[in-house]
C-alpha cells in the first residue's frame, strides 16, 4: 500500500476581486515507504502549497489525497494533527528552531505531543537523535550559538525524533552555503534511508534534487515526472529551476 496517494489534486484559492487562483492543477503522485522523491520548481509554482497538502497541513479543494490508505476527508482536524505528529517530520528552509530553547529542548518539542513512552523518555530520545546528527556535544546550545549547518541538523533531528514514515523537506539547503548544504543533504539522505522513511524534498536546486531516486517538476501547478538525466545536466551546469 502507498504511504501517500494523490489523484487529480487541485488547490484553488478564492480571491475577493479577482478570478480564483489555481495553485495546483490535477496533481497525481504516489509515494512508497523508503522512497526518495524530489520536486523542483520555480518560486510561485505551488511547491509550498503541495508540501502543505502532503504534510496534512492543508486540504485539497479537489481530487483525492490518501495517507496510508485513508482518504484525508475521513480524518477530522484532531486526527490529522495526531497523524501528522506521528507520521510526518518537517524540515523547513528557515530551520524554524524555537528561540530561547536549547538544541535539546527544540528536539524534545515534537515529543511533547507524543503519547506514552515517547513522551516520558523525551529527553533521552532527543539526546540520542542529536547524537546521531553529530551534535551530541551541543545539547545546551541556543539556536543563535549554532552555525546554519548545525541549526539545520538540529531541525533534522527534531523532524526525525518521533520516527516519522514521511519526511518533508522544504528547501532544506536554501539557507546554507554549497558545502554545508551538501553535507546536510547527505546526512538527511542517510538518516532517512536508515530509518526507512520516505523523503520528499522540495527544492529549486538541481544538485539537491539529483540526490533523489525519483524526480518531479512543478510548473504552474502541474506536476510532471522529470528524467534524471535532465536534472543531472542542470546540476552539472550549475543552473537552477
Amino acid at each position: 500500500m502507498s504511504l501517500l496517494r494523490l489523484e487529480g489534486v487541485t488547490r484553488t484559492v478564492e480571491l475577493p476581486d479577482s478570478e480564483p487562483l489555481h495553485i495546483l492543477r490535477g496533481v497525481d503522485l504516489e509515494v512508497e515507504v523508503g522512497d526518495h522523491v524530489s520536486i523542483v520548481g520555480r518560486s510561485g509554482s505551488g511547491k509550498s502549497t503541495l508540501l502543505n497538502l502532503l504534510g496534512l497541513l492543508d486540504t485539497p479543494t479537489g481530487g483525492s489525497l490518501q495517507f496510508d490508505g485513508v482518504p484525508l476527508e475521513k480524518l477530522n482536524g484532531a486526527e490529522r494533527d495526531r497523524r501528522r505528529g506521528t507520521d510526518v517530520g518537517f524540515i523547513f528552509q528557515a530551520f524554524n528552531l524555537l528561540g530561547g530553547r536549547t538544541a535539546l529542548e527544540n528536539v524534545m518539542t515534537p515529543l511533547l505531543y507524543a503519547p506514552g513512552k515517547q513522551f516520558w523518555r523525551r529527553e533521552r530520545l532527543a539526546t540520542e537523535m542529536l547524537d546521531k546528527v553529530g551534535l551530541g556535544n551541543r545539547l545546551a546550545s541556543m539556536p543563535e550559538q549554532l552555525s546554519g549547518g548545525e541549526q539545520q541538523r538540529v531541525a533534522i533531528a527534531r523532524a526525525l525524533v518521533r520516527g516519522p514514515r514521511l519526511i518533508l523537506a522544504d528547501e532544506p539547503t536554501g539557507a546554507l552555503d554549497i558545502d554545508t548544504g551538501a553535507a546536510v543533504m547527505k546526512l538527511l539522505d542517510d538518516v532517512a534511508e536508515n530509518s526507512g522513511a520516505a523523503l520528499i524534498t522540495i527544492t529549486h536546486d538541481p544538485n539537491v534534487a539529483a540526490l533523489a531516486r525519483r524526480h518531479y517538476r512543478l510548473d504552474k501547478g502541474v506536476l510532471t515526472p522529470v528524467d534524471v538525466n535532465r536534472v543531472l545536466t542542470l546540476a552539472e551546469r550549475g543552473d537552477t529551476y
Partner: protein
Amino acid sequence: MLMRIWTGFVGSVVEAWAELRIHRTRVLLSLIGVAVAVAALTGIVALGAIAQQSQIETLERQSGRPALLNVSTFNPVTGETPDIVELDTAFQTTMDRYEIAFHSRNAYTSMIIQFPDGVRDVQTQVVDPAFGPMHRVRLSEGEWFTASDADRLAPSVIVNEVMWNLLGSPPLSSHPTITLPGKQPTTAVVTAVTPSAQYEDYPSMFLLTNAWDRIATEELRQQTYPSYEAWVPIELADQLMTLIQRDVSGALGTDWQTDVQRNDYLAYSDEDPLLFIKLLVTGVAVLILLLGALGLVNISLVTVRHRIREIGIRRSFGATAGRVFFAVMMESVVATVVAGIAGVAIAVLVVKNPWVMSFVSQGIDDVPAFPIEAALIGLASATAVGALAGLLPALVAVRVKVIDAIRY
C-alpha cells in the same frame, strides 16, 4: 485514551512552564499587576473580616451576643412586678430545664460610695458571671467574675475607669477595697476595671447578684426589679422563646404576663446588618481584580501575536488545536496562580504585620486569624483571572492558520 489525556496535561504544563521560563521578564512584569491585585483583594477581604468582627463585637457589646433572649414579667392590669424570689426561682428552673448555661439577671441600681474626695452616687449593674461573655464586656485591668466569686465573703466589684481614677487608680494586686452600703456596710474588693468611653464621666460598677442578694435590704431588693437574659443558639431561639415564655408564665400563675424578646443585633431585621460593608469590600476587591485582569489580557493578546510562528511550528509537529488552546490557557493560569500565591503571601505579611494589626484590631476581643477564605478567594480569583486572560489569546492561537503561521 487516559494515558493520552494524562500525557497531554503534563505536556501542556511542561510547555507552559518552559514558555514562562523563557519569557520570564515579560511574564514577571505582566504578573506584577496580578500579584498586586490579588494582594489587594486578599488583603481587603482579610481586613474586611477584621472590620466585620469589630462591628459585630461593638453590636454585641451594645445588645448582647445573638441570640440573646430578654425575659420580663409583669401584671398586665396593674403593671406590678412579681415577687423577686418567685420570679428568680421560675427563671432559674426554666434555665435548668433547657440546659441553658449562659443566663444572667440584669438589674440597675445605685449605691452611695465613699471616695477619698467624698461620697458619690455610683450606678451599679447587678449581674451574674455569665453576663460578661454574653455581652463581651471589655476589661482594661483584671478579669471578669467567675463562679467562685459568688462565694466570696468580701464581694468582688468591677469598676469603670472613671471610678477607678476616683479611687486613685490603685494597682489591683493591692486588692483595693470600697465599702458597699446595705443591711450593714460591706467591704468589697475591686477585681477588675472596665474602660470608660469618652462620654462617660460618672462612676459605675458591676456587682454579682448573690452578693447583691446578701447585702441589699429587702425593700431595696424588691424595688430593684431585674430583667433576665439567656444566651441561646440562634437556630433554637424561636423555639426556646415560646418554651421559656410558657414555662415562666406557668410557674408564676395566671396573674402575670411574661414577655420573651430578642434584642440582639440580628433580631431587628432578617437582612444582614453587615451586608453593606460586605458588598462594599467585595465591590472594591472585584474592581481591583478586574483592572489587574485587563492588564494581563492586554499583554497576553500582544504576546500571542508574537508567537504565531511558534504556534504554527508546534502544529506542524502534531499539536492539535485543543492542545494549543489548553497550552496557551495553562501558561496564563500557571502564571497567575504563581502570582496569586505571591499576592496572598504579600497580603498575609501586610495584614498580620504587628503595626497594621495594632491599628486595625483595636477594640476587638476575638481578633480573627488571617481568614482562610480570603486566601482561597485570592487564589481562586487569580486562577479565574488567568483562565479569563488566557481565553482570548488561546482563541487567537487556535485560529492561527498553520501554513500562514510558519511563513509568518
